[in-house]
């Protein structure tokens, strides 16, 4: 399987929104490569025509009725917020574009 370049590690870290110190990046570069290397058997497996198993048990989606239950109180909704302004969550300015 593929080797990882440092650039790739940095790209993944950005996608995952993880700040890594330079030594962490270096270490992960080696570790991830070793882990992927140890997964070699997977690439060799014959999986032709096999449907991916996305759920551990084969059930259909059970639906809920369209009933409203009481909301959490505003204070309970915000109780864990590291920063709030009145009844809203407060975040820093959004400089990068929204990726939707």
């Amino acid at each position, binding site marked *: 399987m593929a080797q990882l370049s440092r650039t790739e590690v940095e790209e993944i870290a950005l996608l995952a929104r993880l700040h890594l110190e330079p030594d962490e990046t270096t270490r992960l570069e080696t570790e991830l490569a070793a882990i992927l290397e140890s997964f070699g058997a*997977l690439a060799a497996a014959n999986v032709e025509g096999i449907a991916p198993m*996305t759920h551990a*048990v084969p059930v259909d989606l059970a639906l809920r009725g369209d009933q409203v239950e009481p909301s959490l109180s505003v204070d309970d909704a915000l109780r864990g917020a590291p920063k709030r302004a009145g009844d809203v*969550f407060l975040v820093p300015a959004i400089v990068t574009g929204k990726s939707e």
Partner: protein
Amino acid sequence: MSATIADVTRRIAAGEVTAEGLVDDAFARIGTIDPHLGAFLALDERGARQTARAIDKARSANEPLGPLAGVPIALKDNLVTKDLATTAGSRILEGWLPPYDAHVVEKLRAAGAIIIGKTNLDEFGMGSSTERSAFKPTKNPWDLSLVPGGSSGGSAAAVAANLCVASLGTDTGGSIRQPASFCGVVGLKPTYGRVSRWGVIAYASSLDQVGPITKTVADAAHLLQVIAGHDPRDATSLPTAVPNFAAALEAGVDGLRIGLPREYFGEGIDPGVRAALDETIEALRANGATIVDISLPHTHLALPAYYLVAPAEASSNLARYDGVRFGKRVEGVDLLDMYKRSRGAGFGPEVKRRIMLGTYALRAGYYDAYYKRAQQVRALIKRDFDEAFTRCDVIFTPVAPTPAFAFGAKANPVDMYLADVFTLSCNLAGLPGLSVPCGFTKAGLPVGAQLLGKPLDEATLLRTGAAIERWADITETPPGVATLEPKPDQGTQPS
């Protein structure tokens, strides 16, 4: 606290002990022992006493008592508890007070259980030794220089050290069974969907399951009875009737076909573990079981499949830890910087490693080669089991290749991942799995046997486990914890 659930409920009902008395004992013992053991991350002494008093009052008023009335129980700290700190072993959740209870916690409370505290774990369940907890290591009650296993190491250690009567853990790739084996207690991972995941902090959603860690198989059956059942808040919860798990416990193994997968008995198994397992297999045979040689040919693919599926799902499940609505936040120059710093500082190295691995596996262009392929292999593994279960009723394997190992012994991530090699197929296939103590190594460390069953057939596992437990007769107090005890324990020994 060496009592079992059965002992406690009987003695409470008979008025021989009070719930408050049990709570006093529990906290006294925890106060003495846990500073050296490190099983608990948080204690709820006030809540426990409140519940205990309510139960004692109900008993004196002759009101009906729940099936766990007065039983001190510890919860792995990835089970959400209302108004009681829940960290999942991570700095990123430090200080979070959840506004709701997990489904299993609701069930326990309704059954009269006394929740005494939250136990240590590898951060978000990612580990096999509890060394990856962001807060502290937990030690093995049998030998304080060894790990208790993981990720439910705190729960297993707390039960083994008699700091509580029973506990709940979670199992994504072996996290109940392996620490149960290392600590000489019983651990049951139910069929996926048997127990609701509502309020279980997700590691890998398609693999996670909650289950009991107890001193006896009967207690595991009892606790499973309370927490199992359909929950409409979990779309993967099975709308299936729950049988009476206690009913079959005494049935023995006569006539049972027990499969030994040859792939699980190859090289690399510790001789002490092997000897204990061989003795157990002989005992099974001697008691009327038919031992069947079976093959699970895709076993060698389980580890890579697991270590792609689980990190992929984890990378997604952990995206919500962003410093906005709860948990840790480290300010930055802008939003992106805040995200990166909060997550960079909040997650430990193993969690970051798995997020990175999972993010990589899900990337456009890599998805087919990694995530999708792993899920296809998963289907092959499930097919192996379906095939095997046409030839046997139960599968017997080691829980882990070795007994409890020393701190720091598996510093290399790939070595640590190998600790789960026998337990993770069960999660990939969604099967129930039981770890039951079956003997000791020469060094006196407990060895667990793993029993794997057909989907929803926990009953046969419990029945087989109960038989093994009767012959193995493991009633010793763990020597490691014994050195911490101020005076001899006067509780009833487990049966």
